[in-house]
């Protein structure tokens, strides 16, 4: 009897530390595999690859959370309309950034190093290996609406959200919120025409 209680406690202990949520790393693997699956199809043209990947990336990103973190307190003072407008442009810039670098990642393999989970947050450490290059990529995730979603990417120690927050913050201070939106709009147009 004592034994059973002990082992029950044991199980509880372990279950509690890994929580009842599904594993976030599985989600990252799913995303990476889905994207690599598209990239590694030789019969697709570069344009087709980009078109197919662009929808898939969005499925896994938490755009709302990324936008809020990027704008910091400017998010709070923005109107609903401005927030909406920002999120739309931001997604397209993130996508454009990703798509323009897509070739670099398509040849690589991804190693999963470590998964750390605490409550509704998780950090997944991965390594992209290609040629003699090794790029550490860390995914920061949050559990929302029934799934794990990526809200930041840390590449070689550089957090994407932090980078955007620092540069967009400065642009807002100098040119105002609408100034930022105008610049973003311009960038999106330029990205579209260069595809």
């Amino acid at each position: 009897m004592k034994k059973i209680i002990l082992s029950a406690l044991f199980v509880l202990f372990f279950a509690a530390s890994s929580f009842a949520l599904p594993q976030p790393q599985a989600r990252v693997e799913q995303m990476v595999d889905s994207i690599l699956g598209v990239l590694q199809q030789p019969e697709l043209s570069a344009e087709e690859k980009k078109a197919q990947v662009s929808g898939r990336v969005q499925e896994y990103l938490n755009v709302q959370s990324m936008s809020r973190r990027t704008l910091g307190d400017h998010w709070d003072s923005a109107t609903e309309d401005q927030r909406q407008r920002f999120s739309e442009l931001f997604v397209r810039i993130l996508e454009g950034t990703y798509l323009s670098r897509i070739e670099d990642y398509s040849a690589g393999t991804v190693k999963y190093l470590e998964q750390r989970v605490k409550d509704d947050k998780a950090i997944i450490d991965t390594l992209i290996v290609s040629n003699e290059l090794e790029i550490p990529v860390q995914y920061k995730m949050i559990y929302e609406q029934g799934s794990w979603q990526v809200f930041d990417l840390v590449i070689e120690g550089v957090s994407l959200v932090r980078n955007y927050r620092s540069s967009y913050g400065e642009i807002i201070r100098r040119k105002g919120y609408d100034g930022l939106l105008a610049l973003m709009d311009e960038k999106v147009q330029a990205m579209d025409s260069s595809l």
Partner: protein
Amino acid sequence: MVLRVFTLLFVGYFILAGSVLADDFDSAFGDDDTTVAEKLISDPFQPFNRGTFWVNDKLYFYLFKPVAKGYRWAIPRPARVSVGNFFSNLATPIRAGNALLQFKFRDFGTETYRFVINTTFGIGGLFDPAESIAGVKGTVEDFGQTLGYYRVGHGFYLVLPIVGPSSLRDATGFFVDSFADPLRYANLETREFMGVKFLDSENRLSLDRDTYEGIIHDSIDPYLFIRAAYVQRRLAQVGEDSYNVNIFEGPLFDSDILNPFDWFGF
């Protein structure tokens, strides 16, 4: 009794491990709900820096990049990788010295090992058997990082001509490191020295995959984007908690051939 002690130890271990994990984990999310737009580095000379940035941009597109493209076309990749290995091996004193100054004995050992193996088996540093066979990767150490280790801040942001993003601290470090550069003592004339440095940077550029072009293409203000990335990258190199990818976990030596512990039967 024994069981109880064991259980206590066991639970204690978990609480301890839990708290260590929590510190680490929370610091990685430390900037999450920042309500203040964060300022990563002060930049009082921004107009001046932007001027230098503009000049560097033109130099890049009209001088360095075209030369690198011609060089890339003329010299096969393996040869260029070897040139890169050679320069990297030559700069070992800078990395090893700074590792020592920061009491990073493991990095110091790594650099010493790599220098010995690559200079001998790697034919004067042209090849990198220390990594390709033994799996021992190089480190990134410089005097700017050493200063960071002793809690010296950046001071302010600085864009150096040709060199690019830097800071008061890192530019000082760059200058100090140049004294540990063996090339300095190779009795080269100024022109020859500049030529060798030019080759080093062009070679590096020829192996790069349009990183700078990517940033120009992606960001609405490349100056600000590069500044933020530079500061974050340096923070990571100095060893802030938010950057703790465990790439160095696992066995130190992948192979027995170049494992000195194995040679001497440890």
